[in-house]
């Protein structure tokens, strides 16, 4: 659809607020990060020196950076896979029930409305080694829960907290996907002698594959870039570096370690990654299989 405006000014005026937000909060900082990546700045921001690609060279020789990259990959794929599996399971169940359907669906969507930091705090309290109900329950079950000391447990905690927030989103898409599968296909498969389990794996799941792929990309992007709040509120990247993802490391090195140049260089790398993922996302989504 094409809408034509009689005068040239109005469309720009209508676009202006969004353009301003984009410029001030996205383009300008991005440009600043690009610039800073080539400088070394003192801790107080009083003077700086152009050092070319040295920040990047440091970055790619730093074993901690590779460590963080590995952490990010483990974290992101855990969040994506756990989140999507649970969401699919919930969606299949919500699709089946007849009574109170709306109530379940509404409740399942709620976590999405919770702010990341609040979600983090929520799980941090639930898992607090000295007073968290879940931690105490685990202790009584013989598992010594202390995510302040155990890096693996810290990772599990951030995965749980991040996944919990993302499940609603995945759930909605899977539910919509399930509801778009024509009832007659399932019926035809039933007549063709497929058990409910087989029907799901041979008919429904393949038909959901466009949705699944879309969600995989979205979840990876989410886990890569949007989990700062959750991590900061639960583990602060620790213990040690065990939950320091690439994004958290940008913050940690820049604002805690005050290595602004190094932090900016990391941002540039992340920018490249997010750009790449966006390209992949659009490529595949546009090529999404059309079923008629």
């Amino acid at each position, binding site marked *: 659809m094409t809408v034509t405006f009689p005068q040239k000014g109005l469309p720009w005026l209508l676009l202006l607020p969004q353009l301003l937000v984009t410029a001030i909060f996205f383009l300008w900082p991005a440009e600043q990060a690009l610039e800073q990546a080539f400088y070394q700045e003192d801790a107080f921001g009083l003077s700086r020196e152009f050092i070319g690609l040295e920040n990047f060279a440091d970055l790619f020789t730093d074993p901690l950076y590779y460590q963080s990259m590995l952490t990010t990959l483990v974290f992101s794929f855990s969040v994506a896979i756990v989140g999507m599996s649970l969401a699919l399971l919930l969606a299949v169940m919500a699709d089946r029930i007849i009574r109170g359907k709306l109530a379940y669906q509404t409740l399942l969507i709620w976590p999405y409305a919770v702010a990341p930091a609040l979600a983090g705090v929520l799980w941090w309290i639930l898992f607090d080694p000295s007073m968290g109900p879940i931690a105490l329950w685990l202790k009584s079950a013989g598992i010594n829960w202390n995510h302040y000391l155990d890096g693996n447990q810290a990772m599990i905690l951030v995965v749980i907290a991040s996944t919990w927030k993302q499940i609603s989103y995945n759930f909605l898409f899977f539910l919509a996907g399930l509801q778009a599968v*024509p009832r007659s296909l399932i*019926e035809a*498969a*039933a*007549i*063709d*002698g*497929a058990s409910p389990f087989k029907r799901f794996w041979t008919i429904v799941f393949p038909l959901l594959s466009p949705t699944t792929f879309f969600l995989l990309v979205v979840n990876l992007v989410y886990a890569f870039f949007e989990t700062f709040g959750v991590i900061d509120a639960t583990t602060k990247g620790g213990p040690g570096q065990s939950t320091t993802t690439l994004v958290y490391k940008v913050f940690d090195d820049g604002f805690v370690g005050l290595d602004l140049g190094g932090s900016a260089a990391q941002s540039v790398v992340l920018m490249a990654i997010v750009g790449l993922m966006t390209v992949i996302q659009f490529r595949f989504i546009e090529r999404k299989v059309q079923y*008629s």
Partner: protein
Amino acid sequence: MTDVILEKVGKTYPNGYHAIPSVDLSIEEGEFIVLVGPSGCGKSTLLRMVAGLESISTGELRIRGERMNEKEPAERDIAMVFQNYALYPHMSVYDNMAYGLKNRGMAKKMIEEKVSDVAAMLGLTELLQRKPRQLSGGQRQRVAMGRAMVRDPKVFLFDEPLSNLDAKLRVQMRVEIRQLQRKLGTTTLYVTHDQVEAMTLADRLVVLNKGKAEQIGTPMDLYNKPATPFVAAFIGSPSMNLVDANLTEQGIHLSETLTLPLSHQHRGDIVWGIRPEHLEVSDERNADFALRIQAVESLGAETLIHGKIETEFGNGEPMVVRLSGPHLPEVNSLMWLTAPMSHWHLFDAKTQQRL
């Protein structure tokens, strides 16, 4: 041999809605039965109950003497062709047809043989590797039939399989379905709302109205001796002219001034009917009544004349006349008609039954 028996089969939904009060039907082996009726009459529900996709609330369904009520769709040895074909979009034509055989654990070699046999029969051999979205409507329809045929089931169920095709293809597929069914000799239950489809395909027709079987019989039975005004109106195109009338010793009073003489023992309110093709053009002296012409539809081979019976008060019953060949009477003119008694249909207005 009786193949499928529906005994007082009824359907009540959990919300208390009686979709089907009670239907009795026994189908002979190899018979082609068409369930026909307007939308919402319960014909699809009845078919889905036979398929096992809807539960049977009351009564019993038997296939080859075995009670089927509690059996899963897969255990009933039936195959169904859906209105939207329900082909698995991510599978090739071959896999679509082989799916049911694979699920039943048939050997790969056997499956290949069966699928290629059926594909050859339906002219699908060239298309076996294609996906459903690469096929035309008619080809999809054929694949859906192939998928049903390959399993060699006891009963074929068709749920309005031709309603998504254009008019020309529909006629072609109709003929093809009939030929295939004759060749295979598989008992068939076919649902449609299209009475032409119903008449041309069926060995016997079941006319459903509000979940009740109004009449079961051969197409010609239903055409010649409709049991109720509903069947009379539903079978035949354009549908039968039905006029509320009153039967006395003088005959049938179609209106206060118009009486068709008849000696019949029944008295009271009746519905009088005559098919448009049975009305004959006459002259003023011999005519039974006159029609005030309101519209003329010329179809070349035949002409449909719509009008109202002319009475002194000018508000007579509407009536359609079907004449063969082209005719061009003036709109608003009068046309004199005779209604031969041998073609009359009389129904009791109260019981709605044929007299």
